[in-house]
């Protein structure tokens, strides 16, 4: 991947704390946050809104051919999660074996290391998902 530094830090609220946004005109929750509401256009009234981190798996895959920067962690599980608040959020799934990943499975967001820039470089963190044990 590109030198991720600048956009990593700029997006730190969403990547560390799942901060999205809510349009106060129509009450639609967005993740990641956006400036203009898709439904309300010029009548947008956007505020920060933090997701609970709880949701259900909408779809999933395991990636074996990674882009630059992810060679050391491949293969890795990716899930698309339908969050309790409405938006779909994509992320890594950890602490799950292949056999127990199912559509509809309940998961929660946690905070984990994503990758290291080189051997001694910066460590980048990001939300990931893990199964909620029942």
């Amino acid at each position, binding site marked *: *991947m*590109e030198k*991720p530094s600048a*956009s*990593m830090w700029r*997006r730190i609220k969403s990547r560390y704390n799942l901060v999205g946004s809510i349009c106060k005109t129509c009450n639609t929750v967005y993740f*990641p946050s956006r400036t203009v509401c898709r439904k309300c256009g010029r009548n947008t009234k956007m505020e920060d809104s933090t997701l609970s981190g709880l949701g259900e798996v*909408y*779809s*999933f*895959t*395991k*990636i*074996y*051919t*990674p*882009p*630059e*920067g*992810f*060679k050391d*962690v*491949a293969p*890795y599980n*990716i899930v*698309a999660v339908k969050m309790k608040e409405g*938006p*779909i*959020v*994509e*992320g*890594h799934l950890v602490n799950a074996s292949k056999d127990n990943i199912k*559509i509809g499975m309940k998961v929660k967001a946690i905070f984990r290391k*994503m*990758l290291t820039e080189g051997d001694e470089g910066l460590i980048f963190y*990001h939300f990931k998902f893990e199964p909620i044990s029942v």
Partner: protein
Amino acid sequence: MRKVAIIGVGLSKFGERWELGLKELMAEAGLMAIQDANISSHQVDAIYGGTMSPGRFVGQEHVAALLADQLGFHNIPATRVENACASGGTALRQGFISVASGIHDIVVVGGVEKMTDVPLSDATTALGGAGDQELELSQGITFPGLYALMARRHMHEYGTTEEQLASVAVKNHDNAYKNPFAQFHKRITIDEVMKSKVVADPLKVLDSSPISDGAAVAVLAPLEIARKFNEVPIEILASTQASDSLSLSERSSFTEIKATQIAAKKAFEQAKVSQKDINVLEVHDCFTIAEIIALEDMGFFKKGEAAKATANGETVLNSKLSVNTSGGLKGCGHPVGATGVKQAVEIVWQLRGQAKDRQVSNANIGMTHNVGGSGATSVIHIMKRAD
């Protein structure tokens, strides 16, 4: 608005063309197209060049002016068009608009990508830019990964199977076997697809279009003067385009591409034809699941039925609807910027009756479908013989 026709087409051979650079690829396709159109270089009024990421692949930007110069068009306006993997289709549409509007008469449209000079991980990164960089690629979610998420959901909602998806690749390799311009001339079996290396589960190497070099060129003219150049002009009956969010996650469904649904509906209205009038169709099968979703979104099959129909042979060459006679992106290759123009080249050959071993016997009206990213852009054209 004036009626627009394609009066000449050209194609480079697709594949790993290590012996050719960007310039030579464009010239190979371009020379063929201007000879086919019977035009001299000074008659060309403008050029549109579709390419996705030449800066990442070969370190070259400003490619449309380069294309104009390589083909010997002196000092004409040259405009690069970029819409990820739909760059070629979008360039064709820009050419169509400029001729239809009356601003230009003879317009050359090119598409090109030289992808095999960089390692696979660099290419994967460059292609990943077709999705939402901050949201998807930054987490290591690749392009195959996005289509894998679509495939998994389609399997869940409609019972689509991996074997049914594999039948798309088998069919497209069968067609590519008959296309001298195709990257692959090797028939494959369902079993070989199923046993090929997993890229992003459930998609495997043989569900995926390859990394390719290639170029495609088409020459456009107003229909009213098209016959001066070519006895069989191909009229563009419809040229439509729609967009959506770059990120897959910000769309309401993973089993449809809304931009395709909108562009297809508009195209059928514009051309005043319906699905049953189309018998030769090039769709954007960057992955096997993409062909299935496209056939459903364009209304050729009901949602959830295209995979079964494909496995039953309903889209093979000279069935009711011949899909991806060129071999598609899977079999013919996918030099991303070239693909949308190549689809038009194939349809022109089919409608003129020049497709040789892969000729569709009753080819009358043809259609192309070119997608950018995981569905943020969709471009559709419908064409018909106008002799």
